[in-house]
């Protein structure tokens, strides 16, 4: 295994002025991860789930340059509506300004660095730091500095606004942001994944909305365990969720054979996204009230048979790196990394805006009882991820390679589903996820370019 230490960061990651500050070589060290991911052979070194230094490198090279999910547009109705979240481990405020534009700012006062907003969401005219009272408006501008006379002539408030996320874009109601000033557009980064996302987001012209609130909970596991599973792992369903499938089956005795043995496809994206779904003409929404309401003919007309038979009514998906969703439940979630060993899960339920209230309510209850921290499916996912993580620090354990070889060489263009797809039961999207991770981890980000 080769492991080299690369040169240090050489330029500020944001446009905020930093005067004469220069980070010394050696403060930040990058490791060559080529020997930790064998995406072609389907092998992974468990150090990628446990190593603190690799984790710090992920924050710099995987999270900072990527498009990260922030919120749903429905959370912002009026100027001043805000929602606080994280990009990697960086706290951000997402808000609607007076021009009704969605902006995102680093939630950290430019003076001593405290958060300027400590509410989860709400509506406000400005964000005032509780430490010394620096106050910022909805554009992020510094509008008030108590005792400003004490600062030198050279102090200009316009230099000390909140650090703005340079790019915030939406895709059919989903808001993403990236710190990378040179990033490709969100739409370009999604590529063919957008076709699969539309199966959840584009049932009609009215689009989707969020049902009030966010489920938030923590679990001991590396963020990639969850992101990877939603990208590539239908395989776990029959075993991990055996009890849930059993109680949901009509007989209550065992899962229906047609569920266990159903075939399908798995989308494998070159940018690390992934989506898997059974394919069947009778695939349908699981909540009976939703199933009875939706007009499958209209959906076939709008989105085509392939999408209705496949990703519209079942399956799993991840938008690289850490946004995942379940189309049939309208469960969307972000896996916030909290160190290499912990995830904070934030999950929303989205529904079609056009659905009657009782259909929305049926979907909400169905989602609450199946997914989310008390859901009969999701309880067992959390158990498995924390299990994988809890023993991964053993020296011998950590060095035993993990197997990602299912469906190797099965990737192809099948003419029905866009892009490259594999079988329903496959690790193909997982291999692509880790190949993308490896590429980003070994590529200097914009903030590492020589400023000269």
């Amino acid at each position, binding site marked *: 295994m080769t492991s080299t230490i690369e040169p240090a960061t050489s330029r500020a990651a944001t446009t905020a002025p930093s005067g004469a500050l220069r980070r010394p070589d050696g403060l930040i060290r990058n490791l060559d991860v080529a020997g930790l991911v064998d995406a072609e052979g389907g092998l992974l070194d468990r150090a990628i789930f446990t190593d603190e230094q690799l984790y710090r490198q992920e924050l710099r090279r995987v999270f900072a340059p990527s498009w990260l999910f922030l919120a749903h547009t429905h959370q912002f109705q009026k100027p001043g509506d805000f929602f606080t979240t994280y990009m990697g481990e960086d706290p951000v405020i997402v808000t609607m300004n007076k021009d009704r534009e969605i902006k995102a700012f680093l939630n950290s006062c430019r003076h001593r660095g405290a958060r300027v907003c*400590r*509410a*989860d*969401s*709400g*509506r*406000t005219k400005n964000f005032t730091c509780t430490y010394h009272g620096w106050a910022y408006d909805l554009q992020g501008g510094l509008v008030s500095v108590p005792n400003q006379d004490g600062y030198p002539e050279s102090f200009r408030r316009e230099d000390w606004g909140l650090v703005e996320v340079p790019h915030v874009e939406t895709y059919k109601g989903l808001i993403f942001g990236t710190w990378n000033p040179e990033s490709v557009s969100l739409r370009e980064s999604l590529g063919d994944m957008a076709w699969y996302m539309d199966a959840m987001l584009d049932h009609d012209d009215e689009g989707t909305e969020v*049902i*009030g*609130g*966010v*489920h*938030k*909970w*923590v*679990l*001991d596991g590396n963020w990639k365990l969850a992101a990877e599973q939603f990208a590539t792992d239908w395989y776990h369903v029959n*075993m*991990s969720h*055996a*009890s*849930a499938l*059993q*109680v949901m089956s009509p007989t*209550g005795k065992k899962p229906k054979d047609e569920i266990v043995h159903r075939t399908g496809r798995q989308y494998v994206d070159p940018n690390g996204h992934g989506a898997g779904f059974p394919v069947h003409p009778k695939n349908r929404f699981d909540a009976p009230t939703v199933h009875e309401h939706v007009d499958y003919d209209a959906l076939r007309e709008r989105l085509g048979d392939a999408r209705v038979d496949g990703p519209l009514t079942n399956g799993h998906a991840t938008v690289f790196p850490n946004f995942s969703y379940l189309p049939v439940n309208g469960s969307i979630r972000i896996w916030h990394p909290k160190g290499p060993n912990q995830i*904070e899960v934030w999950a929303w*339920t989205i529904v079609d805006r056009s659905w009657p209230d009782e259909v929305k*309510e049926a979907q*909400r*209850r169905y989602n*609450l*009882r199946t997914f*989310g*921290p*008390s859901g*009969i499916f*999701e*309880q*067992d996912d*959390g*158990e*498995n*991820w*924390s299990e994988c993580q809890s023993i991964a620090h053993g020296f011998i354990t950590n060095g035993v390679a993990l197997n990602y070889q299912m469906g190797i060489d099965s990737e192809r263009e099948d003419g029905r589903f866009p892009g490259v797809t594999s079988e329903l039961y496959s690790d193909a999207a997982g291999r692509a996820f880790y190949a993308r991770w490896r590429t980003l981890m070994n590529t200097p980000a914009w903030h590492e370019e020589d400023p000269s």
Partner: protein
Amino acid sequence: MTHSVLDGTRAGQLADRDIHFEVEQFYYREAELLDDGRYADWLELLADDLDYWMPTRTNRLRRQQALSIAARGEAGFYDETKESLAWRIRRFDSGMAWAEDPPSRTRHLVTNVRVRHASPAVDEGVTESDLVVKSNFLVYRSRLEREENVFAGQRADVLRRLTAPDGVTDGRLQVARREILLDANVLQSKNISTFF
């Protein structure tokens, strides 16, 4: 004890010592059943038309505190009927509910019990023989080797007296409504696999 005759003047009043004792013993029995994993027996303490709700809590600016508890129809950890609780409980008997296999060890502590006679004029959907009860809980969970969780919060219950077929109140209590407020924002647990 005589519970069958309630004059209207007791509506909204703090219940007497005997009733407080009775309700506390009811809760201790309930806690015992949950800690012993006797979920089917626990279900018998719940009314058939049970409303069991546990909303999420959010951090809000002080002037927007009214929004800090998710409303009905918004995000919740539980929003259950007796039937859906039975559905969740059947899962544990499958032998494949991995989040509880091997089972966790839990300890349900119930304190600060405050019992009032229901006031139909004030509380929606209650009768004068119902009891409106607030209590605090601390639930400890130990799981596998070292995992520990503490869930703290408040319950607001409507307890109902069972009526025998002959119309004479038979005295036993059931939970008809339970609103559970967990004192956590981000749930410090990988799941909620127990009940409160």
